[in-house]
């Protein structure tokens, strides 16, 4: 009989999940797993809907990154129409996508993760949250709120509302941008950049406190996947897929996202509603890969904007130019991406073409299948639609950014649990670290809380088939 420690719900992540840590007879950690406990069924419920509904409908997959879904969805629809949106439409989609990356990254760093950096992983659990930070470090909390608001306000200004905007549509966007709007956004840039740089400085100057965490928070070789531009630069909206290995060797390059099925397989495990994608040529589970900010910086040759590239160079020096393997550095990569996104938003707004009122291409259904792919805050996102000639959806396949990291998240919780958790003397701070590795990945599970329980207070006894035999509440 094995004992299992259950952490449920995992907190300060975007979504709800539980983690189980299996102990062996000696009460040492055997393995740990993350279980995503919600099933939403979008791939079925979209069938029968007109394709024009898809961007707004699939945005509802997620309240944190609705823009990403609307972007990937609209791109899939562009392909159904066989059109490419005009330049202004593409630029505006890029701006709203980058704005979302800023707000989502700020949310992860400030609202969810910073309490661990400021108060420490072993701090009193009642204090480890943004509300406490508002009392003890009001400036920092305000910075976080303002940086997130910078992104959200751009989304609201362009899209009409902050969450689930309906402005991103098949063929482009629904409304052009006025010069006044452009100037209003540009006026916000200096303050946002100031906060972004302060955040990075704070993080880097505190890294020495977390040496043990850096070493053990999902520090292992894996593949990395991301979109890159045709010139190999950091790219979030368009581009081609690239896989690199942990030595930095390019394994696959210039893959058209519509061929994703040749490279990515999806496996089903019985203990999680989240499927486990893997790099097909290497098979399951050898084909483990990571996506998201760390992967994007590992895969790209450079960022392509001046301030971000200065930081990118310092970042790459952490491992002599080779890919950074420590999951803890997702936070670092996220902060560099915020700087990049702000610089790019400014560049794009200043492009003359962005104000062109030609923003949308109109057409009928010209293809019966279309794939849309973009980089969401958490990684590469795929929407794959089939329609009939009337534009009614007959099939949908979605690969959600977070799903790509599923195998790596499991490897990560196992590694950190083996480093910090002692089955004979379970400490709250150790379990917080197991959750914190999940926060590094910044998963967007959009799920529900299901199991009650206190950290370490529930120990489940299961047989080898994982069937529950007994659940014991500890003191």
């Amino acid at each position, binding site marked *: 009989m094995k004992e299992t420690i259950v952490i449920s719900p995992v907190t300060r992540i975007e979504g709800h999940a539980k983690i189980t840590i299996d102990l062996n007879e000696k009460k040492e950690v055997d393995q740990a797993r993350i279980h995503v406990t919600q099933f939403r069924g979008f791939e079925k419920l979209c069938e029968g809907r007109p394709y024009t509904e898809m961007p707004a409908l699939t945005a509802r997959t997620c309240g944190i990154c*609705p823009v990403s879904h609307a972007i990937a969805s609209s791109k899939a629809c562009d392909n159904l129409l066989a059109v490419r949106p005009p330049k202004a439409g593409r630029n505006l989609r890029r701006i709203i996508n980058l704005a979302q990356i800023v707000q989502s990254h700020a949310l992860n760093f400030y609202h969810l993760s910073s309490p661990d950096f400021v108060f420490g992983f072993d701090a009193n659990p009642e204090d480890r949250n943004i509300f406490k930070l508002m009392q003890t470090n009001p400036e920092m909390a305000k910075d976080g709120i303002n940086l997130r608001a910078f992104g959200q306000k751009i989304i609201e200004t362009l899209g009409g509302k*902050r969450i689930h905007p309906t402005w991103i549509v098949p063929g482009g966007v629904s409304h052009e941008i006025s010069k006044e709007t452009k100037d209003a956004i540009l006026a916000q840039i200096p303050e946002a950049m100031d906060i972004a740089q302060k955040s990075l400085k704070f993080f880097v100057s505190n890294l020495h406190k977390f040496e043990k965490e850096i070493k053990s928070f999902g520090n292992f070789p894996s593949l990395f996947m991301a979109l890159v531009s045709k010139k190999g630069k950091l790219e979030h909206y368009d581009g081609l897929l690239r896989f690199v290995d942990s030595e930095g060797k390019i394994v696959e390059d210039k893959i058209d996202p519509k061929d994703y099925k040749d490279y990515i397989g999806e496996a*089903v495990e*019985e203990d999680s509603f989240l499927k486990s994608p893997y790099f097909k040529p290497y098979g399951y589970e050898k084909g483990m890969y990571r996506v998201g900010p760390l992967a994007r910086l590992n895969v790209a040759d450079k960022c392509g904007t001046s301030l971000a590239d200065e930081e990118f160079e310092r970042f790459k020096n952490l491992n002599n130019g080779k890919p950074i393997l420590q999951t803890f550095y997702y936070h670092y990569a996220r902060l560099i991406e915020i700087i990049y996104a702000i610089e790019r938003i400014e560049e794009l707004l200043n492009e003359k073409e962005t104000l062109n009122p030609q923003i949308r291409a109109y057409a009928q259904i010209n293809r019966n299948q279309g794939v849309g792919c973009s980089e969401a805050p958490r990684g590469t996102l795929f929407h794959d639609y089939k329609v009939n000639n009337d534009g009614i959806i007959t099939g949908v396949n979605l690969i959600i950014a977070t799903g790509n990291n599923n195998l790596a998240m499991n490897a990560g919780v196992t590694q950190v649990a083996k480093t910090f958790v002692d089955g004979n003397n379970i400490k709250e701070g150790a379990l917080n670290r197991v959750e914190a590795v999940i926060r590094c990945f910044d998963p967007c599970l959009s799920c529900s809380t299901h199991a*009650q329980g206190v950290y370490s207070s529930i120990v489940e006894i299961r047989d080898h088939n994982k069937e529950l035999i007994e659940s014991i509440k500890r003191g």
Partner: protein
Amino acid sequence: MSKTKINVGTIWLDGCSGCHMSFLDMDERIVELSQYLNIIYSPYVDAKEIPANIDLFIVEGAISTDHDLEIIQKIRDNSKKILALGDCAITGNISAMKNLAGTEISLEKGYFELADLNKGKYPNKVVPKLLDKVIPLNEAISVDYFVPGCPTPADAIYAVLKGLIDGVEVDTSKYTRFGL
């Protein structure tokens, strides 16, 4: 409710978290509200169990699993007032759209048809059991306040919370409506 700090819980069940994000979209007004609210259970804090003596529990999302049912009952038992936040909590909304096809058929689609590798079953270990039908909160428990929206806009959340703190009735139709 008076101007003494009130104990607040928040949770999202089967929803997209958009209403919780709208809560954060109050921006700096959260700092102001946090003088009157004690957030003691929420995805934003590290509490693991539903505390006793909650004054106000804000619930986003519909009910779709056996654990949702269990937890919502516990929330009802431990809370003086429950606020259903957003259309999924109030009507089922997008979360209930899978009722049209049915749970079983939706599972088969996701885990058999659209999978490359499956050992023969859809997820059924450790994860909760899905109900045959997704239901809104008031089909499981009594609900005190309903604030619609997809998601509920930040201004509506602010007005309602301010109203509850000050003991003033708020006309939510000024700030939100279903489907907004």
